[in-house]
């Protein structure tokens, strides 16, 4: 398969870029922050994304979706990075939809996926319990009782957890923390009895939540996938999630580079534009190179999700590593090359820096994924 976009994917990319450049952008995020918008995203923007059909892209056709490609969705995710567009698209339409499509019973899929595709139902994966990703470390317990399970424990860094309709909760049905076996997934309405949600405004002006589960009863029909075998769903879902986050990071990195290049061509010091200084030219050229390398990796990883998802683990982690590092470099270099103005809240660069770090940490930073690369490569 060629490492280029086909015509359809290119169209998705171009239209997403155009739409988000007009409707999103740092100013929208600034407004969300300054107005203390309780959603952490613009309901209007989300509504428009729904009208464009974006939440249906990864939902299979037989469940009312478009069943379109990860490559196409990745183009949109990249543009949400460039435009800092905040919405439930990632948590619901990438992660949530994938959990259900991969692990849901026929009944769950028939009932829930058409609503996900239509943007009527939002989802949030409640996985983390520690400050750094450790999927096997799940300690939240799900105790079998007659007709279902009772959940106890707490989760953190649940993106969109404060507003979502349904939570997808990873809880332990057997074994001990540290074991991959024994984890199961449950669909839990956010407003169910015993669920306590605390909104945690994040550094990127978006929201996540800490969620406590105190004797929360769930029925057997709320189990997603086989009991004790949740890892078999989580692993491919985390691959998907991380590749799309890599696409978002690529968008962030590239936008920082573009902003910086514009500034280097405008800003004058010593009577000339600062882009004539070799010290800055070389920094910019090195950054551009890193972003070009990242592009290839992200595209390959998106293609792998479409073509051979069962073998996508290594390339998914590699893409997250490369994208985390490119975004870290681009945001840091962007600030350095802009100089003092980038330290002001009034300037946009800070928003990219803050968003990048949240995306980097979400579902594992580059160090987490480097370790996984080594494991998957047999060392």
């Amino acid at each position, binding site marked *: 398969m*060629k490492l280029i976009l086909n015509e359809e994917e290119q169209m998705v990319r171009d239209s997403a870029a155009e739409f988000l450049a007009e409707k999103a952008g740092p100013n929208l995020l600034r407004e969300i922050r300054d107005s203390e918008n309780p959603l952490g995203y613009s309901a209007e923007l989300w509504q428009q994304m729904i009208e464009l059909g974006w939440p249906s892209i990864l939902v299979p056709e037989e469940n009312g979706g478009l069943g379109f490609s990860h490559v196409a969705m990745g183009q949109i995710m990249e543009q949400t990075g460039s435009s800092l567009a905040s919405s439930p698209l990632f948590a619901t339409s990438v992660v949530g939809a994938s959990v259900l499509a991969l692990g849901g019973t026929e009944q769950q899929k028939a009932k829930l996926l058409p609503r996900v595709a239509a943007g009527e139902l939002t989802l949030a994966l409640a996985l983390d319990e520690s400050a750094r990703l450790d999927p096997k470390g799940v300690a939240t317990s799900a105790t079998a009782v007659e007709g279902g399970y009772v959940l106890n424990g707490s989760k953190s860094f649940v993106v969109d957890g404060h507003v979502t309709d349904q939570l997808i909760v990873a809880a332990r049905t057997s074994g001990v923390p540290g074991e991959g076996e024994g984890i199961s997934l449950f669909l839990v309405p956010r407003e169910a009895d015993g669920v306590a949600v605390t909104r945690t405004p994040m550094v990127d002006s978006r929201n996540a939540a800490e969620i406590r589960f105190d004797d929360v009863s769930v029925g057997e029909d709320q189990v997603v996938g086989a009991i004790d075998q949740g890892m078999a769903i989580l692993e491919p879902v985390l691959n998907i999630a991380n590749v799309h986050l890599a696409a978002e990071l690529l968008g962030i990195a590239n936008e920082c580079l573009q902003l910086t290049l514009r500034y280097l061509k405008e800003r004058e010091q010593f009577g000339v534009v600062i882009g004539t200084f070799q010290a800055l*030219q070389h920094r910019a*050229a090195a950054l*551009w190179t890193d972003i070009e*390398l990242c592009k*290839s990796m992200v595209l390959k990883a998106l293609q792998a999700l479409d073509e051979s998802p069962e073998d996508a683990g290594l390339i998914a982690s590699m893409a997250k590593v490369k994208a985390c590092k490119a975004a870290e470099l681009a945001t840091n270099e962007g600030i350095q090359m802009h100089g003092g103005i980038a330290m002001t809240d009034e300037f946009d660069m800070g928003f990219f820096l803050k968003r990048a770090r949240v995306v980097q940490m979400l579902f594992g930073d580059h160090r987490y994924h480097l370790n996984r690369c080594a494991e998957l*490569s047999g060392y």
Partner: protein
Amino acid sequence: MTFRQETREWLEENCPPTMRTPMPEKNKCWGGRNCKFESEEQKLWMERMAARGWTAPSWPKEYGGGGLNKDQVKVLREEMIAIKARNPLNSFGISMIGPAILEFGSEILKQQHLPPIIRGEIRWCQGYSEPNAGSDLAGLQARAEDCGDHFVVNGQKVWTTYADLADWMFCLVRTDRTAKKHTGISLVLFDMKTEGVTARPICLISGNSPFCETYLDNVRVGKDQVVGEVNKGWTIAKYLLTHERELIGNIGNDSGEKSLGEQAVESLGLKEGRLADEILRAEVAEWEVDFRSQQLTMERVKDEITSASVGNSSAMLKLYGTELNKRRFELLMALRGSNALSWHEQSGASRWLRSKGNSIEGGTTEVQLNIIAKRILGLG
């Protein structure tokens, strides 16, 4: 039968088993009049591939090339990698001067030079750098005097790769000393046996002598051996440099060589499934990620190639590939510890030392950064 199947079957039948093993640097086949094949199989493999035109798979059939399109070339490459087939012929003729002759040369030059390149009969060297023209290549001073039906060339070239083993040289010379430095240069071809050509090997820090100083004293060059137009050689020189950069950027990609991860496991061993040294483990993994991204970028560049984009991507690939290769050798040295520091051929120290030149030859890393900043990013 698809092209892939055909190719697979042909390779299976024609690639000798000994040509499917990792190829040590010293056993590479460079062809030419002085060629010493390491084995009968190596000779056979080169000849079989050459007869099919697959030593230069994309060149037109009329000159003996393979006549394959871009997709077919990719298939051939993939199938060769799949059976770990060695490159049958390393050749600056194929990677550098051949493409330039195809693009800019006269019909006479094409018919004279391309078939022997494809057959591996003539080995070429490149006369570019001079003692006072390194990064500032266009400042070169070797001059060609117009003597009616021929030129007479005088000057000195340096860093001429294997000039002592090569049969012909493609050489940049100044044909107009009054013009601006980029506009008075021509690209000429001559036989290394021509009177007045002397090549003297330079011993490097690696202990090897892959480069020469080449002295040109009243060397007579026929006017039909000018590639393209007189005084328009700089355009071709730049075109050639992009090929050289791709070549240098591609080092570390010898088919058959074990991955860095595998070599790390061999050197350090595993402890509970993990490389025994945690810090080296992280560094090796990081290198492997970067290497993969380089490989994928070469693939992407080939897939999206338009003639305008070639020069741009070659600067990036040269820059990144050579820095990556230096890192690889530093890691290999670290993995092998004091064993790597012994001064004998198998230690790897020689290749490590040689790699230091990668980010200098063919345009330094800093020159590549300048090219990217100016031509691609529009700075300065």
